[in-house]
């Protein structure tokens, strides 16, 4: 497991039913591309997060497949529809098999 991985998610606390909200996510990860070399000229092996998903109450919002060309500390901004109160679930899948999770509640007024 990569060190110091910390997911951060920004979701509004409340919304009206059927509203479209903007979600921003960022996870601290070095996203080693596999193309870089260390000071001895050896290749640094690839170590990235290769997939990110966001679900709301079990229904999918977005599913992103990532390649090494995504920057360090992958950031995503996207839009989601909120039909009812519930919980957003965010999942990141690392190359080494680790899974990082975060969740946020939203209340529909």
């Amino acid at each position, binding site marked *: 497991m990569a060190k110091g991985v910390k997911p951060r998610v920004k979701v509004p606390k409340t919304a009206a039913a059927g509203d479209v909200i903007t979600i921003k996510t960022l996870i601290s990860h070095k996203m080693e591309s596999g193309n870089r070399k260390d000071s001895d000229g050896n290749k640094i092996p690839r170590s990235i997060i290769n997939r990110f998903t966001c679900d709301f109450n079990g229904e999918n919002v977005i599913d*992103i497949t*990532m390649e090494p060309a995504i920057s360090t500390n992958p950031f995503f*901004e996207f839009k989601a*529809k909120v039909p009812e109160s519930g919980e957003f679930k965010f999942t990141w899948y690392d190359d080494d098999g680790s899974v990082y999770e975060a969740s946020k509640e939203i209340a529909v007024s």
Partner: protein
Amino acid sequence: MKFTRRDALALGLGATAASFLPLRAMAATTDEVIAAFTGGADIAEGGVSLTAPEIAENGNTVPVSVDAPGAAAILLIATGNPSPGVATFNFGPLAGAQSAATRIRLAGTQEVIAIAKMPDGSFGKASQTVKVTIGGCGG
């Protein structure tokens, strides 16, 4: 045999070239990445918009956003990177809009392409050239 400075240099260059070969062979070309996504279908211009800076000072983090109303998925390609695939955005039933923004690495000045897959099986394309001052792929 006397090992001259010239020999050593030639050897070093040859070894470097050889070590690059397998990498080039393994990395899929832009066309292959597109074909894997579209299945060889025709791609029309438009239907998707790609926003990227004209000049990116730092190739390590280039902000890009894609927007394709009604699309099922969007593929993002950096044609000049060691491996051209960047990301694939698949939109689920609760996606509020078929748009997303992220930050990508670009190895140098190149064309960035976005291809949108529509639910009816058609494809749309947009591209933009980004000038990169400092490349962001190491090596």
